[in-house]
């Protein structure tokens, strides 16, 4: 039954407890709705798929979120990179969504690692190994039953962030996806609610505009990278919002 996996992430006493007015009582939770097929072309892998257990749902939602923003990601990447971030992310998360049924049969820790491996192998750009090691290490750090609170999620994200720092030889302030993920992790680690994670993502993304790139293709531009949002930070924010949407729906 899918409710078991869903509630293992969104439920638990720690999540949202006492932090927001809209924190719902656990008993009022509804099953996840299916991804809105109307927003997707009929040939899209997400079209007309029923909602599944959490890893499968995450995989489908991630692709839908990336598909919604692919043009923007590529436009941002054309300004300070090589213009393929949207296409690469679609390719990578398309492979993950294509494996949604298989992922749905796995527990979250294993599914995240499997999805990470797919991203590494299928994305085709630097974002593949970066997002891939994020998911891989989040999966390795995940409690066997899945995260039961925002603090659990923060611990997973902390492991994933460390992996990105290592793989990308980067850190906060270098105009990368880390400038979104690190503030989101900090918001969750300090007990913040879903809204705090969203706000941290938005603020972190906007902060990349004034930064000068030190890593990635944009680093070649030096000072000319200033004034543009970082495409990797943007895709990270898109995915953070997708997870927040899912958690809010599950907790509603």
């Amino acid at each position: 039954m899918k409710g078991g996996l869903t509630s293992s992430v969104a439920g638990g006493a720690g999540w949202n407890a006492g932090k927001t007015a809209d924190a719902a009582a656990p008993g009022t939770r509804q099953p996840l709705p299916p991804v809105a097929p109307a927003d997707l072309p009929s040939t899209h892998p997400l079209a007309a798929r029923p909602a599944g257990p959490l890893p499968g749902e995450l995989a489908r939602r991630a692709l839908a979120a990336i598909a919604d923003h692919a043009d923007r990601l590529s436009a941002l990447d054309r300004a300070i990179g090589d213009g393929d971030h949207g296409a690469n992310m679609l390719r990578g998360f398309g492979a993950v969504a294509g494996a949604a049924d298989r992922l749905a049969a796995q527990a979250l820790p294993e599914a995240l690692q499997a999805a990470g491996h797919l991203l590494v192998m299928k994305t085709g750009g630097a974002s593949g190994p970066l997002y891939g090691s994020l998911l891989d290490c989040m999966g390795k750090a995940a409690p066997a039953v899945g995260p039961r609170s925002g603090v659990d999620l923060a611990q997973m994200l902390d492991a994933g962030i460390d992996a990105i720092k290592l793989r990308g030889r980067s850190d906060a302030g270098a105009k990368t996806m880390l400038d979104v993920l690190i503030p989101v992790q900090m918001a969750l680690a300090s007990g913040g609610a879903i809204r705090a994670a969203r706000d941290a993502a938005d603020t972190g993304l906007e902060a990349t505009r004034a930064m000068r790139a030190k890593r990635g293709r944009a680093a070649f531009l030096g000072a000319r990278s200033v004034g543009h949002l970082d495409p990797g930070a943007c895709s990270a924010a898109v995915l953070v919002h997708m997870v927040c949407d899912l958690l809010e729906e599950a907790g509603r």
Partner: protein
Amino acid sequence: MSAPGTVSIVIVSHSRDIARGAAEMVRQMVGAEVRVAACGGNAEGGLGTDVAAIRAAIDSVWTDRGVAVLVDLGGAETNSESAIDLIGPPRASRIAICNAPVVEGAVMAATEAAGGADLATVRATAEAFGA
């Protein structure tokens, strides 16, 4: 001759044509005693890099003396690192990504390798080019 005695070279570019062209330059300038593999483009044949293809390229010229990898930009480096991770120990320690321009670095690395140098020396020679 196949060259178990020399370090091999792998060229990773976003462009298949650049990778092949650089490999062709190496073969012409250095000769065939150093094995060179070219790897470029994503899995669909467009611009990009492909972890599985990079891994296969390294395997195709594998020697216990080691493999020097030349990369062009961002994703080529990151994806090459992932390929090396997948290969894993003990072979991973005998693969070095050189921080050097892809064409010049490949020629310099192959020249050094042809003389029988070890992997660290091959890498240092490639990297000295841009220094």
